[in-house]
């Protein structure tokens, strides 16, 4: 399903079923001044649905650019099916060694730097909540959307697949945030959560965010962000407290 997040950002969501609970494996489409930019390319698991959705969203033209958060399979598996291995589509990735990451040649984005892609300025943010060393969060300067992988995610129930945060009774549920981060960012067992919080504060002081668009969660609108962050902080405290060294 394709859901409008902000005026120029659309959410192309797919779900993976964990025995009745869902986890998003999404990509996003940015309508930039000079063309369309996909953020991530989704999983091979949803390949047909994704290629159909991108086709529909671009009137059969396909994307003009693909920007990858990282090369992990659920994020980069459809680069070639979406034309990322051709001269027609600009591929942007943070890895300095695309061959080792199984990627075609890509324009390198430096984490901490910016690039103009299809006439839209993108910044590449060093992410505190990720599962690969070369992961970048991506901030588009048009509408002010911060694309995050793999943090800021959540599980959800069937029927909630197309929810933005404001569509929940009270923003993204706390338990869904906790369980997602517990299962997917296992290293949170070892962190001092206040250190992650300081980095998140710096990020959100630095960029004006209209929405946080996670690859593995429901998009978080600006008026739900404080609530989400409070619940994320609680989740990190809980995950750390629950792991006791033997």
């Amino acid at each position, binding site marked *: 399903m394709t859901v409008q997040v902000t005026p120029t950002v659309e959410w192309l969501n797919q779900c993976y079923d964990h025995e009745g609970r869902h986890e998003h494996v999404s990509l996003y489409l940015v309508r930039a001044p000079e063309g369309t930019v996909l953020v991530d390319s989704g999983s*091979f698991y949803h390949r047909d649905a994704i290629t159909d959705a991108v086709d529909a969203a671009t009137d059969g033209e396909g994307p003009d650019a693909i920007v990858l958060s990282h090369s992990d399979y659920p994020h980069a598996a459809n680069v070639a099916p979406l034309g990322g291995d051709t001269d027609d589509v600009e591929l942007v990735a943070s890895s300095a060694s695309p061959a*080792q*990451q199984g990627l075609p040649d890509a324009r390198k984005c430096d984490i901490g730097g910016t690039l103009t892609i299809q006439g839209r300025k993108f910044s590449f943010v060093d992410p*505190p909540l990720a599962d690969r*060393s070369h992961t970048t969060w991506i901030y588009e300067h048009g509408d002010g959307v911060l694309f995050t992988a793999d943090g800021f995610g959540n599980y959800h129930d069937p029927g909630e697949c197309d929810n933005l945060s404001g569509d929940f009774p009270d923003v993204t549920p706390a338990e869904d945030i906790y369980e997602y981060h517990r299962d*997917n*960012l296992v290293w949170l067992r070892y962190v001092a959560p206040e*250190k992650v919080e300081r980095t998140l504060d710096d990020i959100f002081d630095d960029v004006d965010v209209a929405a946080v668009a996670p690859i593995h969660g429901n998009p978080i609108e600006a008026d739900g962000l404080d609530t989400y962050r409070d619940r994320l902080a609680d989740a990190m405290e809980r995950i750390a407290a629950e792991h006791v*060294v033997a």
Partner: protein
Amino acid sequence: MPREIVPGIHWIYEAGPDRTESWDLADRNPEWYDPGREAYVPQCAYLVDGGEETLLFDTLSPASTDQILATIDDLVGDRGLDYLVVSHPDVPHAGNTLAILEEHPEATLVAPEYGNDHELYHLDEGLHVDEGDELELGDRTVKFHEATFLDSPVSVWMTEETTETLFPVDWMGFIHLDEEKLRFVDELDGEFDRSRLVEFHGRVLFWYQYIDVEKTNAEIDSLIRRFDPEIVAPAHGLVIREDATEYMAMMKEVTRTIDGQERIGTLG
């Protein structure tokens, strides 16, 4: 060319790109670095041959498909490959899984039980292993363990019981100079510079910058007590075959050092 660490355990090495420029080594000139030299963070796989059965731990990256297929053939010959273990589905570690299984349909795919999205990584089929599961290969027996320091949730560590070798995957990696490739740490010139471990962990296990130092170091002590290995065979460093637990203990100072400084950088 692989190198045999001890009888029946072969170290298969992929250099990857020269990190001199991306890690700014020429300008920063750390003590272990020789100006003008190349430096690498390797990608390593290991083949365990128990005489009766063979097992490959990790696959090298897609940049080295031909290399890993040729090396497997050289090492196992007509006996074939019995097990292919994927430590975690990170592309540089697992990116040749399908190519190897196509070439060796006799092999059983072995993946971590941990995590909950195996289908998204082609890891739903095959044998899933968790803490304490063993495979007896003849003269060698491997045992699997929950990965302690990791990135992907679908992760496993491994030990080989008779040689007391620990395979801690992404933990205990470090950068080395070009002429040091495939050398054991005890063969390096001079004293080992701990800053190599700091450079790696500060970039690759990037979450080290947020750790609870006391808790992490307590976990390291627990790992030393629990495994007490003779050999440490990391995925991204040179093999340690002497004083292995001293290098593990050195990691406590690494965590303290990373805690006290800004993010070192990214892997690139």
